[in-house]
């Protein structure tokens, strides 16, 4: 099956001549249907640049990106805008919710902007909020919710147009560890429902929820770990504390 995203030889250079900075060099990446991929590395390693290229927020200097087998890196502005609206969902460190709209309206908005009829948009928003455990917050304003809840609303908003890929850039960066776990659990559940996800994070505890983890350094992918390779032991707890004679 064609991967959801296929990137070959991706590179990004900022500036030119003496001031040239290589942000990304020769990155290949395949994302399969329903795959949950984490990209980790220290700040400045190029992981956010990679995500921005995959999401069409920025153009690569070299290389190609295909979505469902179709090139998108050379798309014109109109097509890129359409892709960003309907094929790609974004979540960032900051929730960027609109504070004077209700939670339900926040989630509905991108669907309305994409031309989905009002009733259908409302139905989708209600269903997503239900699935993400947020049904009771639908009529409230974002400011009255906890950080973890607000980020889950942002995830619901990112999913309302049924994107092929959910792109998340440090989605737990602004949350305490309990709220971070809430958000990671939601991502994991979505991936179990078949949603393809690319998660950028410097936090390995967050990355460990993914199926596969890429490590980046100095703009290049330097390693890959497959976390699905061996069956999980299921004895995580009982091996934590060895009692010795």
């Amino acid at each position, binding site marked *: 099956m064609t991967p959801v995203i296929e990137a070959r030889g991706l590179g990004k250079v900022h500036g030119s001549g003496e001031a040239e900075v290589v942000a990304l060099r020769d990155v290949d990446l395949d994302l399969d249907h329903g795959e949950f991929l984490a990209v980790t590395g220290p700040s400045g390693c190029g992981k956010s640049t990679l995500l921005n290229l995959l999401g069409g927020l920025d153009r690569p200097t070299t290389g190609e990106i295909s979505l469902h087998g179709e090139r998108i890196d050379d798309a014109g502005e109109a097509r890129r805008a359409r892709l960003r609206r309907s094929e790609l969902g974004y979540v960032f460190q900051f929730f960027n919710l609109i504070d004077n709209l209700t939670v339900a309206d926040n989630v509905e908005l991108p669907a309305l902007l994409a031309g989905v009829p009002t009733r259908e948009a409302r139905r989708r928003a209600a269903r997503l909020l239900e699935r993400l455990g947020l049904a009771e917050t639908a009529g409230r304003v974002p400011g009255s919710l906890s950080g973890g809840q607000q980020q889950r609303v942002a995830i619901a908003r990112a999913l309302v147009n049924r994107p092929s890929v959910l792109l998340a850039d440090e989605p737990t960066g602004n949350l305490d560890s309990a709220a971070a*776990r*809430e958000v*990671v*659990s939601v991502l*994991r559940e979505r991936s179990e429902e078949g949603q393809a996800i690319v998660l950028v994070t410097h936090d*390995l*505890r967050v*990355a*460990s*929820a993914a199926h596969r*983890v890429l490590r980046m350094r100095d703009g290049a992918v330097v*390693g*890959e*770990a*497959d*976390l699905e*390779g*061996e069956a*999980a*032991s*299921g*004895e*995580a*707890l*009982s*091996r*934590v*504390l*060895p*009692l*010795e*004679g």
Partner: protein
Amino acid sequence: MRHAVLALLADEPAHGYEIKRGLEERFGTVIAPLNAGQVYTTLQRLQRDELVTDDAVAQRGRPDKRVYRLTEAGREALHEWLGAPSAPTRLRDDFFMKLVLAHGMGLADPAELIARQRAAYLRSLGELERVLAAGGADGTTALVVEGAALHLEADLKWLDRCEEELTR
């Protein structure tokens, strides 16, 4: 396990099964399941070292039940253990052995060993995070899981350092 058994006898005498159950109640899911043999072996050794002693309690129609209690020396040993700082946790020496031997003797590719070890640590970390996320650990159990997760994070950082040193 010796000191845990001494601690369980601190309040009142108990028989082997009660000690096993006490350990399971306190440490439940974070220790591997105990078998009765382990507990009895430990009790025998403690008795040999005169840290516990036992009284036989007659039971109707069954062999006498052995009820263990702390000796004065046992109580001292328990308090000495409680009062002394524990040795810091060290590296997983088994992996370090593999790495040094693979590197120094060309027996295996250190980069591959590190990559496999990293994936194993990440999988373990993922399991622990899921336990915490599912609320499967509370109170002291959550603390011990948190401790294990922090150790794994340190192990992962250390692998990065090994990689820098040994695979360039």
